[in-house]
């Protein structure tokens, strides 16, 4: 999964299967925001294969750790988005009372 030199752990390419732009662009964004990263990018070698190569080069920290931290940050961001969204929807429903939604009732 990780392709890089065995001696220098600060630069590596990670090849993820069953992924596409959806996750790769989001991870690239969070990686870019990390001050330890000097270079990051992703590429899709062929559109018919579901494979993404993410390249990370850091200022000394092992690239694997930095990628893991970026994924953790992305997860935390998602959780925060979810809770903020749920709160906003609940507030909207309280201030604009609608009929009870009947999903499944014909």
């Amino acid at each position, binding site marked *: 999964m990780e392709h890089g030199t065995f001696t220098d752990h600060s630069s590596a390419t990670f090849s993820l299967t069953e992924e596409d732009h*959806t996750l790769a662009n989001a991870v690239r964004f969070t990686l870019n925001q990390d001050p330890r990263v000097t270079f990051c990018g992703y590429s899709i070698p062929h559109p018919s294969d579901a494979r993404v190569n993410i390249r990370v080069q850091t200022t000394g920290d092992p690239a694997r750790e930095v990628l893991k931290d970026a994924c953790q940050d992305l997860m935390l961001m*998602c959780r925060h988005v979810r809770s903020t969204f749920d709160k906003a929807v609940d507030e909207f429903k309280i201030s604009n009372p609608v009929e009870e939604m009947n999903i499944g009732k014909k």
Partner: protein
Amino acid sequence: MAENEGKEEEKKFSIWDLPDVPMGKLPPHLELQRTRVVCNVDAPIHTESIQYSGAYASMGVDNSLRLDHFSNNFRVEVVRLTEEVMEFDMIGIDAAIANAFRRILIAEVPTMAIEKVLIANNTSIVQDEVLSHRLGLIPISADPRLFEYMSDNDQPNEKNTIVFKLHVRCKKGGPRFTVKSDELKWLPQGSEFVKDSRSATSSSNSKPETYTSFTCRQDSLPDFVNNAPGPKYLDIITAILGPGQEIELEAHAVKGIGKTHAKWSPVGTAWYRMLPEVVLLKEVEDDVAEELKRRCPVNVFDIEDIGNGKKSATVARPRDCTLCRECIRGGEEWEKRVALRRVKDHFIFTIESTGALPPEVLFTEAVKVLEDKCERVITDLS
């Protein structure tokens, strides 16, 4: 000698000592470049988002992601929420993540849809495969979270399949009969077609083997007591029968995602646009103001009286701007009057659900899917 001293004085002078350059913040033109897409007559500029943490390091501005900064500034405002459509604003998020949510909503949130159709009799003019294709595209109102995926090796059972029956006949001598989706009847006990098994071990007293192996009735499960699964819209025309024609079939619905086939996509569509910002760069008065107001097809501008019988134009509804660029067409003076911009981190999301799940639940599920993907990557890396 005096010259050298003069040069040394110059070197010690730094641009940051000037009183009108704000420290720690970007100058206004760079702030514009960082946060706004400027839409000119020919093409938009500054469309990329400046993500690199060290992009403004030479200015002493830190562009890195601080999670607390994101948590404090992120806002969601719901504009419209009905059973089928939802429109809300997400402020403070980047395009990469908003696009990830959009892609997941369209392709990776699971739904139930008809996959296998067992046809016992079809004497209509609609071919078997065309009829099966149409049945697959009918939206089914069943909560996909209550079901499991079915792989090729699995037996169809009450946890991964919903069985529907369609048996219609058009009377001879009668008018043509239109088969609508309300003719699909739910079979809570599973398949009724008996499999032809001539194995010696099966005794004639045991229950005949059908195409599904339900261990209990689906309507005895608590989730389905009040909401029976079925087609969401009952007036979808599936086939048309002439006199004497008959269709008898059984349809099995399973769980899948939009990536495999579009019939499993839970949204009619989901899209976002950035918040438009329309700014008048100069004072626009009288005739020119009238002209400007007339030009805009969605009435973004309004005329207000400023006294002395003079009128001036104001921006009343920038959110409605569709970027038709009518207000900046027609030469340089028009381009200098109005600035059309887009705010890079303010997204107006619209989600139209096909009915299986309400749109706010769909968005929550999409965010959960992204979290699961991240978790999978983290476990792969460890």
